[in-house]
Structures are given as structure tokens and as C-alpha cells.
């Protein structure tokens, strides 16, 4: 269900939309930076709230963090619905918007953080609101793209009979959206929401506390608590924050996502789903509670009637295709596009100019560092797969074991791995173990769970007929793995590895420089390069670092993951 690269339908060549979009995005990113730079407001250290390590503050901090998460999620959801719908219904916009998403997905969220922090701080000088916005924005960027792809994909694959029915019943755009498009996309959207929300904890933990221009900005929250705890080397406080984090993740899962996933099952298209779907005890509780039902009725019934109220007298108009969301004349489209491209060019030129000033030696050096980080990402992904495949298969083939293990692995995947980095750093410091290799296990801490999670799901889904056939054919050891298991879990394995490697690129920014008390460990890699540039406030280097990392991610996606993913959709598709 958690599908990646949803937009790949045909063989994708790099065409003019890609180039245009690249220019626009680089331009836009640089524009934010450029505007922010001129207005860097001094944030006095006095008006910063101190973070208290007393555990009684933890519920408050957890609440603050949770609030950020939900605000960011609401923004992501709104963005997905609007962006996805425009992209799906506006052919011209689609050609720009979809490649744009693909590239945005490749920009490392955390590298971008320093830029957004400065920009937002500049917008709201003198208080923490800017930093707050930057943190929420970081969480938003880690959630929105995936969800948008999901919604867009649902809209473009909607069966034509449903669309025709909507036309026959003369649904207006709003009704169509509420009664057809959102319900139809619900299952995918909910699933992607849950996964994205889980993944976003990592970005929350990393972005609540950030050092820009040698100045540490801390927002009250669980991530800052952790940061302060390990700067002070306060192990009990570190353990408190980890325990709180786990409680928060499990609580949100039980009280928010499980109920929503269980509820969304009613949007399933196939009617004959007799097998047991996901269930939620909390949802059962809500459904049986009279007053909750009464409140829900009171809230949603008027909302449901909204379109009727908005309806004009034009009910008797003949059946015709409803208007598109935004009917922009073709010429206007071109003008808008030209303006956007001009804007992009202007700032891309600025960015290129900035980067060129660093000199070719620096640029080559950044690519070299990028290559080191690339090797680490590949190593982390491969090592993760190496242990997760056998373990995941054993768990997935045993139904009792997988019932126990799956929720645990899901929590582990949601848990922000950067919160346990200090413990590992502590060991590295004690053993005098460098971060050049040491950062690989750190990356794995966060990313291997995605592989394990997907492999378990893949192994569980192997049809019993195939397993029995393998027994009857006496496939043993090597043949069993080669003929049955590996091909059967291949699609899930690839999905898991794509997610893991994407996560590892982001993790490189927190895994290549770590601290424990006064010790700072650093690896030679692009992540460390970006962190140092951020601390120094060297904008040219930040720009270069992010650009190089994005280039690496885009190229690797195109030459490695896209073809593999296409293979899973065709040859290894179990139906």
C-alpha cells in the first residue's frame, strides 16, 4: 500500500519539464535564502526560554512537540489535497507540478533547515515564532510530498465509471471533491499519512534545536530536552526523554492512527472483504459512545449540507462535464510559466554565481564528500537489508510472531533515531572510534526498520499456495530462497530500501557530526559539510552542499531505484 514513485507510469525520460522545474526550484530555494540573508535578525539569548531537565516538564515539552507535529500534518494534508487535485485535473500544470514534486522529494529536508530558519527568523525578528515556523516547515516538508503523490495517484487512477456517475449526478466541483475524490483516495491517503507522520518524528527531533551562526536556537519540546540532556551528559534525563518519546508515539498510534486506519476501511472499493481488516478498540469505543456520536452528527451534518446551501438555482441545467478546478486560458498559462521561469532563472543565476565564487576546487571537493556520503548510504542500506531480510522472512512466515513483532517494528521505525545517537557517540568517544565508519551504524539505527517492516509485510503476503508448491517441489535452502522467497518479497524489499536510503541521506546530516558533552565527532562527508557550513553561516557552502546532495539523490533515484521499482511493478507483481 505504501507505494513510492507513484507517478511513474511510463518510462520516464528527462524532458523539458524536468529542466524547467529544476531551475524553478533551485531559484526558489535560493530566493528564500537570499531574502533571509539580508534580514538576519539578532536573536538575543536572553529571550530564549531555558530548557529544564526536570522530568516534570516532559509532558509539557511532549505536548509542545505534538502540537508542532499536528500543525505540520494539517498543513501537509491541505497542501496535498490542493496540489494533488490541480496536478491531476490540469494537464498543463501536471507536466510541471509532478516533476517538481519528484525533485522536492530529493532535497534533503535537514540541509534546507538552516536556510528556512534564517528566513523565518528574519520574517519574525526578535522572537521564537520564526524558529517555530522553521521547525514546522521542516516537518511539513518531510510529510507533504509523499502524501501529495498518494492523492494525485488516486485521482489519476480513479475508475471512469465513478467519474461518469459523478457527471450524471451533476456533482459540482466541491461535491465531487467531498463525495468522490477524497473518499476514493482515502485508504492510500490515510496510510501515507500514518507513515509520513511516523517518519516526521525524526525531523522534529532534529529541528527543534539547531545551531545557526554559532548560535543555538532551542524550541521548548522533547527534541530540545534531549539535546540539552546530552550536551550536559545527563544520562537519566536522556532516558526520560526516550521513554516519553516511546509513550507519545504509541499513544498517537493507538488514539489517532489506528482508529483512522480502521475507520478508513469503509472506503475500500471491493465489497466482498470478508477477511478481518485493521481494527481499533478506541474507534469501537467512540462509535458506541452516544455523546460522541451526537457531537459528530451535530458537527458533520451541517457541513454535509454546505454544498446544498452553496448551490445556486442552476439545478436544472443539462448534464455536462463539470468545469475544471481552475480554468486558466492557455495564453495566461504560458505567461505565468514564463514569469515563473524568469524568476527561477534570476535566482538560479544568483545561486550559480555564489557557488562559482567558491572556486572549482571547493566544488570538486563537495562532490568528493558527496561520494563518501553516498558510499555510507549504500553501506547502511545494504547492511540493513542483510540482516533485515532473513529476520523479516522468519518473522513474516510465522503468523504468531509477526502479530507480535509488526507493531513493535512500526514503533521502532517511527522512533527518531537521532535521540539515541548520543549513547552511541558516548561509546565511540570511549573507544576512540572515528565517525568516518561510525556514522554508518548511526544511519542504520533510523533506516533499517523500514526494510524490516516491509520485508515482514512481504513475507506475510506470500500466498500459501506458492509456499505449498515450493514444499511439493522440494525446494530447499538456496533454491527456496532464490525461487520463492527473494522474488516474492522483492517489491517490498525495494520499497523498504528506497525509503531507507532516502532516510539515510537525511540522516547523514545528523549522523556525520555528533556530540557528547564537550566531544564533537565529525566524519568527512557531505552531511558534515552542510552542518559546518550552517554553523558558520556560510551561505555559498550551504547552497553548494544542498545542491550536490540533491544531485546525488536525483541521479541515484533515476539510475538505480526507478528501474528496480519498475521491475517490481511488472515482473515481480503478485496478483
Amino acid at each position, binding site marked *: 500500500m505504501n507505494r513510492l514513485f507513484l507517478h511513474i507510469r511510463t518510462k520516464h525520460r528527462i524532458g523539458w519539464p524536468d529542466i524547467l522545474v529544476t531551475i524553478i526550484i533551485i531559484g526558489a530555494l535560493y530566493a528564500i535564502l537570499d531574502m533571509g540573508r539580508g534580514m538576519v535578525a539578532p536573536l538575543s539569548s536572553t529571550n530564549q526560554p531555558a530548557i529544564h531537565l526536570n522530568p516534570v516538564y516532559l509532558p509539557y515539552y511532549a505536548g509542545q512537540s505534538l502540537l508542532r507535529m499536528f500543525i505540520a500534518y494539517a498543513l501537509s494534508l491541505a497542501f496535498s489535497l490542493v496540489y494533488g487535485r490541480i496536478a491531476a485535473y490540469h494537464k498543463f500544470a501536471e507536466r510541471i507540478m509532478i516533476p517538481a514534486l519528484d525533485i522536492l522529494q530529493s532535497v534533503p529536508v535537514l540541509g534546507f533547515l538552516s536556510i528556512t530558519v534564517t528566513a523565518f527568523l528574519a520574517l519574525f525578528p526578535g522572537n521564537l515564532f520564526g524558529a517555530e515556523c522553521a521547525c514546522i516547515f521542516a516537518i511539513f516538508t518531510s510529510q507533504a510530498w509523499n502524501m501529495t503523490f498518494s492523492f494525485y495517484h488516486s485521482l489519476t487512477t480513479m475508475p471512469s465509471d465513478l467519474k461518469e456517475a459523478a457527471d450524471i449526478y451533476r456533482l459540482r466541483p466541491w461535491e465531487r471533491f467531498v463525495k468522490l475524490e477524497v473518499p476514493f483516495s482515502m485508504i492510500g491517503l490515510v496510510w501515507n499519512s500514518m507513515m509520513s507522520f511516523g517518519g516526521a518524528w525524526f525531523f522534529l527531533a532534529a529541528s527543534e534545536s539547531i545551531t545557526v551562526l554559532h548560535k543555538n536556537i532551542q524550541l521548548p519540546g522533547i527534541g530540545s530536552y534531549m539535546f540539552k540532556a546530552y550536551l550536559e551528559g545527563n544520562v537519566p534525563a536522556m532516558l526520560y526523554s526516550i521513554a516519553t518519546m516511546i509513550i507519545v508515539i504509541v499513544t498517537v498510534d493507538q488514539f489517532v492512527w489506528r482508529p483512522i486506519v480502521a475507520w478508513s476501511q469503509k472506503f475500500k472499493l471491493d465489497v466482498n472483504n470478508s477477511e478481518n481488516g485493521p481494527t481499533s478498540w478506541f474507534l469501537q469505543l467512540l*462509535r458506541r459512545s452516544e455523546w460522541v456520536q*451526537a457531537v459528530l452528527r451535530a458537527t458533520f451534518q451541517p457541513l454535509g449540507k454546505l454544498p446544498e446551501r452553496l448551490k445556486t438555482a442552476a439545478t436544472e441545467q443539462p448534464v455536462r462535464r463539470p468545469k475544471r478546478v481552475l480554468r486558466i486560458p492557455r495564453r495566461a498559462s504560458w505567461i505565468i510559466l514564463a514569469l515563473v521561469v524568469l524568476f527561477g532563472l534570476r535566482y538560479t543565476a544568483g545561486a550559480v554565481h555564489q557557488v562559482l565564487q567558491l572556486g572549482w576546487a571547493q566544488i570538486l571537493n563537495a562532490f568528493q564528500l558527496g561520494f563518501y556520503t553516498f558510499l555510507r548510504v549504500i553501506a547502511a542500506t545494504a547492511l540493513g537489508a542483510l540482516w533485515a531480510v532473513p529476520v523479516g522472512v522468519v518473522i513474516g512466515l510465522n503468523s504468531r510472531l509477526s502479530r507480535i513483532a509488526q507493531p513493535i517494528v512500526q514503533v521502532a521505525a517511527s522512533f527518531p533515531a537521532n535521540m539515541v545517537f548520543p549513547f552511541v557517540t558516548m561509546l565511540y568517544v570511549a573507544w576512540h572510534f572515528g565517525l568516518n565508519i561510525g556514522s554508518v551504524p548511526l544511519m542504520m539505527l533510523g533506516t533499517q526498520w523500514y526494510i524490516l517492516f516491509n520485508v515482514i509485510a512481504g513475507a506475510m503476503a506470500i500466498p500459501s*499456495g506458492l509456499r*505449498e*508448491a515450493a514444499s511439493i517441489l522440494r525446494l530447499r535452502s538456496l533454491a527456496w530462497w532464490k525461487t*520463492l522467497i527473494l522474488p516474492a518479497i522483492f517489491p517490498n524489499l525495494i520499497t523498504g530500501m528506497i525509503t531507507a536510503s532516502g532516510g539515510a541521506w537525511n540522516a547523514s546530516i545528523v549522523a556525520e557530526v555528533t556530540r557528547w558533552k564537550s566531544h564533537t565527532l565529525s566524519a568527512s562527508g557531505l552531511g558534515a559539510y552542510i552542518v559546518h557550513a550552517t554553523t558558520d553561516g556560510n551561505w555559498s557552502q550551504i547552497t553548494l552542499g544542498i545542491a550536490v546532495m540533491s544531485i546525488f539523490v536525483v541521479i541515484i533515484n533515476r539510475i538505480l531505484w526507478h528501474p528496480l521499482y519498475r521491475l517490481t511493478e511488472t515482473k515481480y507483481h*503478485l496478483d
Partner: protein
Amino acid sequence: MTAATLIEIRKLSKVFSGANGAQFHVLSDIDLRVAEGDFVALLGPSGSGKSTLLRIMAGLIQPTTGQVLYRGRAFSGTNPGVSMVFQSFALFPWLTVLENVELGLQYASITRVEKREKAIAAIDMIGLDGFEGAYPKELSGGMRQRVGIGRALVMEPDILLMDEPFSALDVLTAENLKRDILELWQMGKIPTKAIVLVTHGIEEAVYMADRALVLSRDPARIVNNMPIPLPHWRDRKSEPFTRLVDELYSILTQLKDARSIVAETSAPATRKMTIIPDVAPGAVTGFIELVDDLGGRVDLYKIGESLAFDLEDLLPIVETCRIFEFATVSSGDFDLTPIGRELADATVLERKTIFREQSLRYVPFMERILWVLQSKRNGQMPREFFLEILQKNLGREEADAQLDTLISWGRYAELFAYDEDSKLLYLEEAETNDATPE
């Protein structure tokens, strides 16, 4: 001289343990023998454990007690002498037809070239010439099953096990495939020495097999071992053929009695349950109307044939009619009772009344549900409550299915209502007082 015994099963039973420690007896006291030259069909109501028995013969499932011998010897793991054809085909979608068939030769001690030749020969034999390089998804259902058969035959097993191999295919394709298999078997074109076929088609069994084993259910025992001594090719219209089919029909439709005796002897402590088969009320009334139009009495096999219903479709309806006493069944004949005739002529509302009365009279659990709901002040009760009671007598899944059926009957008879979202059963009258979910 008797033929050599290939598979022998002695005193076999199989118990699955479900959640909350409930024990679920699937097979009990099974003794059987498959000898060289046998073509055995396993028949029985759905859920009777035919497929479980087949998988125990194959060594895919271990029996709880008892022994399975192949050529007089016990084996561990998969039975070395068998190969199997699956209802779902079980082809590896990432392998071509040729590669799928070659899998059967994985461990044969012959050269690569010989393997290829043998696989191609098997593909030719099952009529898939020219499709060697195709992937399963490019093939139709019938062709996929041919690959499945080819893969099984290339292993040159002593015994070929077939688990409802034709039930996923349309009638014509299945017919074609049956003939081809019979031809390979009859003409001795394959070295296979015995075939065991699991099926729910009585006619299919009588057409193909030389012996039919009839299983009861809950738990399954072998209630009949009937030889089918007709020469091949068999004429479906001939008198001996239809007589055998009729006989098997009447054995299968009498199974209910055998079952309740079993239930009483094996578990005297448990309360006797009337299990309603999973059928829609509309199917029952439709069938009764039809029988009424035909004079109130029909031959089950004939009506099954004319409706193109197989046993799987017909048996649950027949059994439901018996439970509600809309009809009596004896030796393959189906007779409407006076109340059955009344139902046939009734209006929609009258029918609901009849159903209401009959289900309270003959389905004790329905009465119990109603009693529980009536004794609650708010007139509602969660589904799990009833599920747990049912689970004491049935396995988890079966209890779930049975409750679904009871709910659909209860709703139809307007005994109570049910809200799927909150999983609550409730009395209809209560709705006007409280604001129960719509």
C-alpha cells in the same frame, strides 16, 4: 493379486487449536488406503477437511495423531512419492512456463540438457506447445492450470494429488482439461500410479474417479467408500451414471444426521448447536418458490443439473430448508412441507413473519440473542458478546462466519438490527427512544 499399497492412513485425526484454547476437531478416525491403479475422489461438504486430508497425505500438514505411510514407510516432511495440483495454480509469476515446469526437475539426477528436453516434452504433452517462454500472467486460467499439471507430472510422481483443480475454471475449459487428464491416465501416457482428487462436484467425481470417499464434517469421518465401477469413457446421460450420482447426492444430503450423532458422542458436555449454513434468505425463498412451481417435490441431482448448481451451491440451501423445516429430504428427493408451501405463496411481509417464527423455533441461538437483547435495558449488545459464546462451540473463524449468517437472518426476519460500524446488535424498537446509530 492385490495391487501394491501406495498410501496408507491409520487412525488419523487432526485438531487445530484456535484462540482462547478452543480445540477444533477437523479430522477424526480416518483410515484409508490408496493402491496402485486407484483414482480416488474425496467428496464432502465445504469445510469438511477434504483439503486438509489431502495436505496430510502430501506431508504439508502434520496429523495430530495417527500415521501416514508411503509404500509402507513413514516419512518426515513432504511425502516423497507425491506431486500436487493446486486450485489456485500456485505458479511462480516471475518464472516462465518452461522455468516453472523445470522446477519439478530441480533435483532429478540428469543433465541440464535432459532436464530441458523433459520439461519441453511435458509442456507438449499438456498442449502448451509454443508457450514455453510465456509468463503465467499472459495465460488464461485453463492454460495456467495446464502449466500446474505439467509441473506436477514432470516430477513423475507415484501419486498425483489434485486439490479442486477445476473449480477456478469456467465449465468448458474445465471439461476440456478433465478429458485430457483422463486420457493421459487411461492411456498410460504418464507413469503416475494413482490419483487422488478433491472435489465438490459429484458429477465430476463420478465422471473421473473409480472410487468416491465421502467425508462428513465437524469432525470429518469417512462415511462412505463407494466404488464407481463404470468403464471409461462414461456417458453422463446413462442410467448407471445418474443412479450413482443420485446415490452420492442422497448420502451427502443425509450428512446432517451423522453429524449430530457425532457431536453428541464426542462432546456430551457441550450444548448442541444448530449451525445455519452461509446462505442468503433470498436464495432460500427463491429455491422454495422454484420447487413449489415444479410441484413441491424435486430430485436434487436433476434440479442441481438444470440450474447448473454444484454441490457447493445446493447443499447449504437444502440444509437451511431442512433446519427451518421448510422441506424434508430423503434419498435425493426434496419435499416441501406445508409451511414451505405457505412460504412459497406468501407476500414479502408474511415471509418475514414465517422466518421469524421458524427461526425462533428451530435455531436456539437466535432465540438466545433475542432474549439477551430484550433483557438489556437499552436493548443493545456488542457483537463480541455473542461471538465469545459461539467460540466455545466453534472455531474462531467459523464462529465469526456463523454470527454473520445469524445476523443476516435476524435482520431479514426483523428480529433485531445491527450496526456494522459500532458492531452492535440492537432491538429495532429501542431506536426511537435512544438515538441509536442509524
